């Protein structure tokens, strides 16, 4: 039989208690149990970055963390970032620069970009490129994403 674990965590500001299969990873829990489908599943082995989300204030791969490990944690998904206004400037810059096409990488890219901006990252293009190099985008060629992050940092400075 499927083995389960009881968890108690905060997701996008809401307290969640659930009994989950031990093997269930965090992103599947968020998507399938909580209906937070904004976090995407691209490879399920930690490489593509589509499932990048925020746990206890830092970016993590949602496919490389068990839901059970998130017990007691504070999780913020793209829906939470948006609803709480935590990523408004980046989202506006992504729109203005068309830093997304199909949108599948976008929630993970946004989480990575936000971590960079919040950590005081500079507008150095190479540094931005290095930082987002764990987020695969097949559509944009990355340049617009770099521009959007640059814009956000420059505007915050002025």
């Amino acid at each position, binding site marked *: 039989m*499927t*083995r389960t*674990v009881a968890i108690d965590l905060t997701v996008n500001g809401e307290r969640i208690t659930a009994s989950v*299969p*031990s*093997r269930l*990873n965090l992103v599947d829990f968020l998507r399938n149990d909580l209906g937070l489908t904004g976090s995407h599943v691209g490879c*399920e*082995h*930690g490489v593509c*970055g589509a499932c*990048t989300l925020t746990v206890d204030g*830092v*970016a*993590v*791969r949602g*496919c*490389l*963390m*068990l839901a*059970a*490990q998130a*017990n007691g944690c504070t999780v913020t998904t793209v829906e939470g970032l948006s609803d709480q206004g935590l990523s408004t400037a980046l989202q506006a810059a992504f729109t203005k620069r068309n830093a997304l096409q199909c949108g599948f990488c976008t929630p993970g890219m946004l*989480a*990575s970009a936000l*971590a*960079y901006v919040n950590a005081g990252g500079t507008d150095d293009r190479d540094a931005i490129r*290095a*930082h987002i*190099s*764990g*987020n695969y985008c097949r559509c944009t060629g990355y340049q617009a994403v770099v521009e959007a992050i640059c814009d956000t940092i420059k505007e915050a400075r002025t």
Partner: protein
Amino acid sequence: MFSVMGGTMKAPDFDYLRPATLDAAIALLASSDGDAMPLAGGQSLMPMMNFRVASPSALIDLADLAELRGISRDGSSIRIGAMTRYAELAASAEVMAALPLFGMALPHIAHDAIRNRGTLGGTIALGDPAAEMPALALALGAKIELAGPDGTRVIDADEFYLGYYETARAPDELIVAIHYPVALSDHRFGFHELTQRHGDYALAGAVVARTAQGHRVAFFGVADRPLRLPALEQALNTNPDVQSALHHLSAIAFTGDVKASAATRQRLAAVALTRALQGMTQ
């Protein structure tokens, strides 16, 4: 690398256990007859489970073990708890000051989101031949502190890596901490890693520590395990011209795979070593 038999991207079922103490964790491991696996950061174990190449009966999450946390300096040695995450290493002024090689290597380890979860103990225990930290442990002459049912023991990093993902850690042992000698003012360090893409596992990498005792040189990404070449180190001690030492590389049984043949890896290892030496700290 993996034979496709069916849909294989959801982990098989297991028990998730989260002991509160080191003793409890070891007892759980010991009672599982080797079927249970410790879960540190999970950044390598989770993919292996999703691929169903690892199927432990239980995962023993080490997250709550206070004994595996903390960074402390004791004279000429710095002790880093096994559950210290890469991001914590990078944020530690003490680590950066005591171990300049960490500052050189950490940016090459995968990406931010992985470094936020991955742990030093996890990567040391896994022994991925292409990973950076095991090679750093060799180059620095680190000591690995293990706890098991019969108590603790300390083993030299030189004795730890036995083969392809094979280490001296017994299945019922846990890495508690890694002890590194603190860099002295006359120590010099070099690090160079060759990857086609930022954050990838190395095609070849070299780590150099030079102290009054001479060179310690470790390679990663080149063979079935991270390794040192004493003869090459000796050659560098007697003649600083790296070209005269490179022939010792042929003692390595280089890996050949789809990314590079064994011959290419040997060549890249030579470049990595040369550039590591060129880029030594001043």
